[in-house]
């Protein structure tokens, strides 16, 4: 047997082994969570039936009732995006490789941000509801935490991607730290900043739809409320409103991006 044949055989064996592992993992999963395939398959038509029969047609009688939650959600988005972008901007400058004043600051901030980001958003929201009570305040703070976790990292990444030569040139003229930021880094970082901030606004709109589920305000609370009361046709209306809102916001931010960048 020559070498090429052996290699081919090895590769085949490897492929077979990974396939077997995959099948074993699937079987274990099915067994572990008592996943009943027949019940699942029969559940899919039931689910579609539920969506298209119980939810249709959307109840359009009291559309004006939903104006308030929509405005709430938009206001949530604006306030949370602006506040978190300001905080994240400061953190990002302290956290990025090329602008961090001290390595210790960088490592500490990086771990804090990574903690904020990796604890699920809904958990933060639920804890904040315990702290501040039901209402808009925990929702805003949860969104701000989400924004800080998300934006600091992305801002820092864009700052790190900046062209080094401009920074070196400014440094060579004897510029101070702040002058360096102002003249070399901020102008290059601006497009990234605007683009990510707009993206953050889109995310807050989606997220505030979810916030209502833990009692933190926004349009999500209407979804939860109508579903708890089994008024599925009203739920359909809220979901449609939400889809339209998300699409409009995405369209508007896309237009702004095209104009600015």
């Amino acid at each position, binding site marked *: 047997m020559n070498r090429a044949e052996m290699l081919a055989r090895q590769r085949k064996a490897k492929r077979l082994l990974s396939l077997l592992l995959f099948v074993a993992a699937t079987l274990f999963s099915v067994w572990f969570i008592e996943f009943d395939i027949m019940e699942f398959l029969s559940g899919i038509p039931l689910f579609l039936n539920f969506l298209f029969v119980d939810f249709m047609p959307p109840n359009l009688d009291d559309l004006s009732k939903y104006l308030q939650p929509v405005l709430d959600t938009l206001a949530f988005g604006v306030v949370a995006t602006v506040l978190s972008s300001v905080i994240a901007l400061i953190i990002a400058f302290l956290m990025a490789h090329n602008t961090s004043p001290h390595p210790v600051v960088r490592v500490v901030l990086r771990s804090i941000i990574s903690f904020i980001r990796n604890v699920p958003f809904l958990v933060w929201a639920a804890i904040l509801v315990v702290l501040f009570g039901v209402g808009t*305040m925990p929702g*805003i703070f949860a969104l701000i935490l989400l924004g800080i976790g998300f934006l600091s990292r992305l801002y820092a990444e864009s700052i790190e991607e900046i062209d080094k030569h401009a920074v070196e040139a400014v440094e060579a003229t004897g510029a101070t730290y702040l002058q360096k930021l102002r003249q070399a880094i901020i102008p290059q970082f601006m497009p990234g900043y605007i683009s990510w901030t707009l993206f953050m606004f889109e995310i807050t709109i989606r*997220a505030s739809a979810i916030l209502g589920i833990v009692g933190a305000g926004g349009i999500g609370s209407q979804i939860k409320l109508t579903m708890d009361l089994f008024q599925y046709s009203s739920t359909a209306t809220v979901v449609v409103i939400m889809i339209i809102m998300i699409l409009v916001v995405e369209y508007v931010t896309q237009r702004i991006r095209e*104009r600015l960048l």
Partner: protein
Amino acid sequence: MKIPISHKATKRNQRLFFLVMIVLFVPCLFYLNLSATQFAEGIARIPDIAKQFLQISLDDLPKLLTELLTSVIIAFLSVVISVIVALLLSFVIADTTAPNRHVAKVLRVIVVVIRTIPTTIWVLLAVASMGFGSMAGVLGLLFPTTSFLIKSFTAQIDEAGKDSVEAIRALGGTWWHVVCNGAIPTLYTTFLALIAFNFEMTVAETVILGMVGAGGIGVLLQEYISYYEFAPLLMGILVVFITLFLLEMMTNQIRKRLNSQAR
């Protein structure tokens, strides 16, 4: 004399952006009418709750880990099913391989609508239809994961698969030849990377989804929060944090490998 070197129009537009940001921010802040006393009361409660948090206990760790495994399994199963569905559908949707343009267009619109609805809402709907439990979680996750995979698969097929597809077409190959011999072998590794990436996103989502009744570790977290049991809650948060942190590191590795492959 000072010579301005920045681009004037860009600068003006950027100034306008910040101006709009401030102009929108101030009325929104007043509209939300945040109460200072509520804020102060919440802040005053922090030390008390922090004290309860810090009485960390290991009692619930085995329970937490089993539920974490359930969460991961829910994500795994929904990704497995989604991959099968997405593979079938994305070749029907992608421009280069679509057998019928009109069908492709309709499917594309459906995928966009599915993607717009947040995952949490899907799971909420699935729980309402199927009852609490892991199966509802798998069903609810199926829609967003499938639509995500379809979107990224079709983008890859349109981008990378074009040459081999054209070559096989020129030889008179059928649609099956195009898909099985042309597109799949060239895109094999990219698809695997995308699936891994999607799996990690889905795990992060399943952790949350338990909180709306879809099984997994989120159910426990929701229980702890509603019964004010902060000591095990901190343990749960740490378990979740460590898992997601490791996953994030893995995702970064995959992204790096993808990037180096693309170059």
